[in-house]
């Protein structure tokens, strides 16, 4: 195998960029699961909505990409609150019906997107995609670095919010023990809305960031959703550091694997790895071992 160092570094860089996107999806999933025990299979739709809304803001409303991204996050955060209130709050204990509701949302959103934006994919051309950065023999678009940098900032902001603010502390308390949190006067319903808003904003950020690099189409959230789910399981289902490391690991491993095996099997490597790791650690890399685990 003649794998050169240059090719390797290139794939690591690409993988880190994709990993950053997966982390943004995984963080939302892990927050929602950790606090509400809801697996949001409609999270991919929020991701795609991020791409579309960002396109609308950037092209039709305001010419500035950063402002468009922020507006996208706000819009989808509000949508997240509505979604939690109207749908997921009622289905908290009914896992199978969460799946049904999610698929209903997926069908509505994906087909509505076709009705509104037409069947062909949208292209979102922002300045940072057109300018290239050369490092030795390699060249990347600025957007590559924007994605990674914004993701790191988002992780840091989330961490500060959760650790150092009253609301963040309340959120963590609810995720540890909802009953006890209620006893000491935390409004759990408000925390659920906050969680959904944050999760949706992060997914929308992912969609808005990846939109300019690839195309915007209704199913653009499917693979990030699957990878995000894999990331949170890998990380231990409920662990935020686990989701972050899981997301980056999946991005880098799948990118590097293309150097050694056909690209067709890239996704399979990730899913096989998930099963292999759970064989050794059934509670995930950073999860807590519960009584009953083998």
């Amino acid at each position: 195998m003649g794998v050169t160092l240059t090719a390797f570094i290139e794939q690591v860089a690409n993988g880190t960029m994709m990993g950053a996107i997966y982390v943004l999806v995984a963080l939302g999933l892990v927050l929602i699961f950790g606090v509400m025990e809801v697996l949001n299979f409609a999270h991919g739709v929020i991701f795609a909505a991020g791409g579309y809304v960002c396109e609308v803001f950037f092209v039709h409303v305001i010419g500035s990409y950063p402002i468009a991204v922020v507006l996208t996050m706000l819009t989808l955060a509000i949508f997240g609150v509505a979604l939690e209130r109207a749908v997921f709050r009622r289905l908290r204990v009914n896992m199978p019906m969460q799946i049904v509701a999610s698929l209903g949302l997926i069908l509505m959103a994906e087909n509505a997107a076709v009705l509104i934006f037409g069947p062909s994919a949208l292209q979102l051309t922002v300045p940072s995609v057109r300018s290239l950065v050369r490092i030795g023999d390699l060249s990347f678009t600025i957007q590559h670095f924007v994605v990674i940098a914004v993701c790191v900032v988002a992780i840091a902001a989330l961490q500060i919010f959760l650790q150092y603010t009253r609301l963040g502390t309340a959120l963590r308390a609810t995720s540890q023990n909802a009953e006890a949190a209620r006893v000491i006067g935390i409004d759990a319903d408000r925390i659920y809305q906050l969680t959904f808003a944050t999760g949706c904003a992060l997914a929308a950020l992912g969609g808005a960031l990846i939109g300019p690099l690839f195309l915007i189409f209704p199913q653009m959230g499917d693979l990030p959703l699957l990878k995000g789910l894999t990331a949170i399981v890998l990380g231990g289902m409920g662990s935020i550091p686990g989701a972050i490391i899981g997301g980056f690991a999946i991005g880098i491993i799948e990118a590097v694997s293309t150097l050694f095996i056909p690209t067709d099997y890239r996704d399979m490597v990730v899913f096989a790895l998930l099963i292999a790791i759970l064989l050794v650690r059934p509670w995930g890399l950073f999860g807590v071992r519960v009584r009953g685990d083998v």
Partner: protein
Amino acid sequence: MAIRAGVARLSIGVMFAVVVYLLPVVLVHSPYVLFALTLTLCYAIPAMALNLLLGYTGLVSLGHMGFAGIGAYVTAVLMKNGIAPFAPAIIAGTIVAGLVGVLVGIPCLRLRSHFFIIVTLAVGLILYLLFNNLDWLTGGAAGLPGIPRPGPINLGFAIIDPRRPLGFYFLAATIFLLVFIVQYALIYSDFGRSLAAIRQDETLAGSRGVDVFGHKLTIFALSAAIAGLGGGLQVEFLRAAAPQSYGFLENINLVLIVIVGGAGSLFGPTLGALLFIALPEMLRVADTYRMVLFGAALLALALFAPRGLWGLAVSGVRKLRGHHSALTHAGHP
């Protein structure tokens, strides 16, 4: 009481079988409806398989169409290359799907519920990617076209020719009813009661002497095998195997068939299959507008019928009856 309930159940079962067999006689002038109904039966079999896990054991598998795919491809490869005739081919497909079920079940069934769900999702995706990429065996993304239909079956008093639509319907109906009987027998056996105990409280079931892992593995393998049988039948009916039939959305669709129909009820999966296979086929739901409405209907269903349509119907009937008996009670104090 128990005998009367048994007789009642038996007569409902016989009526159901008669209806299934006589449906095409009523619809003989509509080959299209016959096609949709046969396809429904082909999907109802994996749906019943999943119901055994999801409804009766409490295990959500998001990769069950993958097992149907194994049965489908094994049957397809054996039939297409003339290695085996229909019966051995579909039995081989069933057995291979069951064996893969054992292999998958041994590591996965040790995981806690949410881990298990995502891992079955991963297994389903891996199987799909294999179907899609093992070109030499599965024909890759183009699939395997031109699979021969089974030859005529001589029953002595009649000859069923599955190469004709009506003949295949009778073949599919027979296999469907057999699986229905298996489902029924399993649920009302001691084994089935142990599964129910596991669903309700795994720890308690274990401490009462139920071999939890053994039971889960057995039902998972059985369920995978039945799904494989359904896949084999489906591929024989459509005469082509395509990887897209076993992808992520198809997996979710199967879960929907079971949940929306009514998980944990005998007739739920069949009702769900009718709703999700026959109805869209006949209404041509592929239209974008209708898909939006369909999505909204699913959402409404999730919110307002938490136990599925069969559950909704049953509780509706109970309510009516309760209302009725309350009235009679008031009338005759």
